[in-house]
């Protein structure tokens, strides 16, 4: 057994631990452990006096290593490792025994919880007894960032990072940046024109010397780790040279193929060769390969003939570009929950039932009806419009359990915009609750009710169907206790926001987690709201959770500042808990070489050698080695065997 001198510090955490764990008993039990020369309990170990007592005890008792029995290592491991360092120890000889999250908080019986806390603490004592002093490994930093997604979140993050002088690659899968914000007509609570406030930022992105914009591109592969990621980006062919394209529209006017226009959510049509909208960045046409008759002059070739400047090239090939970056911001945005899921709302099959984004395109001056609110079926002005909130959200039984957060506000905005367009029309809103937290938000909703005379009905809609050229809406008003039937000219559904299609794949590519609803998971719900669980990868916008534009911009700025902070360090330190080879045991069988996911092991003179910068310390090699010749520092087989013993003693 080790001759090292161990100190144990047991925290009460006020009553958080002490209520279910007999802290004194844990302290006494640890004092009897072999190698333990000092054992103490304290009400708040992480408080200043608590920390000082750790530092003093290390010095006074000549401790070689310490165990703190307290909360999860995710919270205070750094605190106490810093304490150990201040007292002259190597910080890697400090171990945390998690007796709060994994013990005190999940058990009620005091005897059982105390017994388990003793096992957990003893196991940490065993581990600490064999911990070695380690020094962090310095690795260089690539001073360049990747932003995935060109909506308002990605645009803001890219601009903030680039304005700090760091190079940025902004990748967008569609032919233009702008995202959903560009589809909006006006924004709440000021009724600013959405396009007017976004397009200057888009122009800034396209002109910024530090931003490399890659539209019509997708991230395919990501390897490496914080500070040094290697990214493969697929650039899909647009078949139009943006440098030559004059945006004259000659090509589109001869194109024979007509398909629904995605930007107007199918309310208008476009040609196979098209520009998504007038302010598109880059300002160039794109030939939609899936709609085109065949990229072949024999089959059609009309657009190529019509183009005076020869910008169209049917032989353009997809390109794979490899870039190295130090940090990544993921801003892949949202999609609306599909109407097809909502059978009680017609399942997307009833005419004149629109989703929120379609209604935005009806109101927008650049939209389907040039800013006149006309219902799609017969292009007449709708005189009665029903807006329905919480469609697909707050419905754990059948749809999404969560609140989509912005629908109360945008429905109020829709009702107001409608009343401004059609002053003699009548607007009804079905709602469950009105959630209008935010600066100026509540006043905005009040104005929708009082100034614009929107009729708010508290209750849900049970069914809607087409009848006599109108949409019959059956609902209930729970405040009067009466059923309501409205023959509406048009219905607008405030559908839940869900993570955009492809969020799952990008999360897998980047190895970042998702929450139960599929949104990207932040590292800590309160204290690390823009960090993903993987170091060096940050989150912004609706890919993380439903949020409005100001919040998205704030989060994008926060993610950008994290990136700038990270990339402004001269070197990053890589955890030294990496694999080590015992040459005397190694037979050169190469099992570890195959098992290593990072290609960090190779053979030299018949023995395995570990590249410490590439090694992440996962231990796949050690579990594969038949001769115990390779193991992860401070998580060695000997340590684990002793920990097992401690858990079962």
């Amino acid at each position, binding site marked *: 057994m080790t001759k090292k001198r161990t100190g144990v510090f047991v925290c009460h955490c006020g009553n958080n631990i002490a209520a279910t764990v007999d802290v004194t*008993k844990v302290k006494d*039990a640890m004092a*009897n452990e072999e190698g333990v020369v000092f054992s103490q309990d304290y009400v708040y170990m992480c408080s200043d006096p608590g920390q000082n007592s750790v530092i003093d005890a290390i010095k006074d008792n000549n401790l070689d290593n310490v165990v703190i029995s307290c909360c*999860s*290592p*995710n919270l205070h491991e750094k605190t106490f490792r810093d304490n150990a360092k201040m007292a002259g120890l190597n910080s890697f000889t400090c171990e945390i025994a*998690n007796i*709060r*999250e*994994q*013990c*005190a*908080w*999940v*058990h*009620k*019986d005091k*005897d*059982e*919880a105390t*017994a*388990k806390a*003793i*096992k*957990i603490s003893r*196991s940490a004592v065993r581990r600490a007894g064999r911990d070695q002093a380690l020094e962090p490994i310095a690795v260089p930093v690539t001073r360049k960032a990747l932003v995935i997604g060109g909506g308002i979140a990605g645009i803001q993050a890219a601009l903030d990072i680039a304005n700090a002088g760091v190079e940025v690659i902004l990748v967008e899968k569609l032919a233009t940046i702008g995202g959903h914000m560009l589809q909006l007509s006006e924004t709440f609570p000021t009724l600013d024109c959405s396009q007017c406030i976004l397009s200057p930022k888009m122009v800034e992105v396209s002109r910024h010397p530090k931003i490399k914009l890659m539209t019509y591109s997708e991230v395919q592969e990501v390897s490496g780790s914080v500070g040094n990621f290697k990214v493969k980006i697929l650039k899909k062919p647009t078949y139009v040279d943006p440098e030559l394209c004059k945006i004259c529209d000659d090509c589109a006017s001869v194109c024979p193929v007509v398909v629904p226009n995605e930007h107007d959510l199918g309310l208008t049509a476009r040609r196979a060769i098209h520009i998504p909208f007038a302010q598109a960045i880059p300002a160039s046409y794109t030939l939609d390969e899936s709609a085109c008759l065949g990229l072949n002059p024999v089959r059609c070739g009309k657009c190529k003939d019509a183009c005076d400047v020869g910008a169209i090239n049917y032989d353009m090939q997809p390109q794979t570009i490899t870039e190295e970056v130090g940090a990544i911001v993921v801003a892949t945005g949202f999609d609306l929950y599909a109407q097809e899921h909502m059978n009680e709302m017609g399942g997307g099959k009833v005419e004149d039932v629109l989703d929120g984004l379609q209604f935005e395109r009806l109101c927008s001056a650049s939209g389907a009806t040039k800013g006149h609110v006309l219902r799609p079926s017969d292009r007449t002005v709708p005189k009665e419009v029903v807006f329905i909130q919480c469609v697909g959200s707050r419905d754990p039984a059948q749809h999404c359990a969560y609140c989509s957060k912005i629908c109360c506000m945008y429905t109020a905005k829709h009702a107001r915009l409608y009343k401004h367009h059609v002053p003699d029309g009548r607007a009804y809103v079905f709602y469950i609750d009105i959630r209008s937290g935010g600066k100026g938000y509540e006043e905005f909703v009040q104005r929708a009710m009082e100034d614009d005379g929107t009729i708010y009905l508290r209750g849900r809609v049970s069914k809607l169907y087409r009848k006599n050229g109108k949409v019959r809406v059956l609902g209930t008003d729970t405040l009067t206790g009466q059923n309501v039937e409205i023959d509406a000219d048009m219905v607008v559904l405030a559908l839940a926001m869900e993570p955009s299609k492809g969020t799952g794949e990008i999360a*897998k590519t980047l*190895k970042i*987690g*998702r*929450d*139960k609803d599929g949104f990207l*998971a932040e590292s800590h719900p309160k204290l690390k709201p823009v960090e993903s*669980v*993987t170091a060096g990868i940050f989150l912004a916008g609706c890919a993380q959770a439903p949020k409005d534009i100001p919040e998205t911009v704030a989060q994008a700025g926060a993610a950008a500042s994290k990136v700038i902070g990270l990339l402004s360090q001269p070197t990053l330190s890589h955890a030294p*808990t990496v694999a080590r080879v015992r040459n005397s045991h190694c037979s050169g069988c190469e099992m570890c070489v195959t*098992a290593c*996911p*990072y290609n960090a092991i190779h053979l030299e003179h018949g023995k395995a050698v570990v590249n410490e910068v590439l090694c*992440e*310390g*996962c*231990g*796949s090699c*050690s*579990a*594969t080695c038949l001769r115990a010749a390779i193991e*992860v520092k401070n*998580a060695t*087989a000997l340590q*684990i*065997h002793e*920990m*097992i*013993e401690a*858990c*079962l*003693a």
Partner: protein
Amino acid sequence: MSHSQAEVTQAEASGEFEPRIVAFLCKWCSSAGSDLAGVSRMQYPSNATPITVPCSGSVSPMYILSAFKKGADGVLVSGCHIGDCHYIEGNFLARRKIHLVKELLGFVGIEPDRFRMSWVSAAEGAKYSNVIKDFVEDLKPLGPQNKMKADRS
């Protein structure tokens, strides 16, 4: 050892068999998931003592056998969901060993059900708590594990 008597819990004293479980949790998903169970105050039996390891792929079959040899009635290995491994493919390596370990346990005369593997993400506190509850319930009918337990007297 002197402290072992002091640790006899009420349940054990009352005579009902309480399986002793060693739970190997990967640092990134399952350990974080068990932390979430704690933060959410989800109650589960105290039978399982957690050992946090870097990755489920680092759990050698030797650790599992070692736990049985030291008297464990059940061993749990819990990692990230397949495809979500923090170390790219460590949990694939772990998954490959499940069958091997079960077969080996059967061969030496231990019920293969004493070894269990689960996939618990950092967001699945409730799942972790259920994994422990279920495992404890399933181990109770099997009774104490004595086949591999070394005589330490």
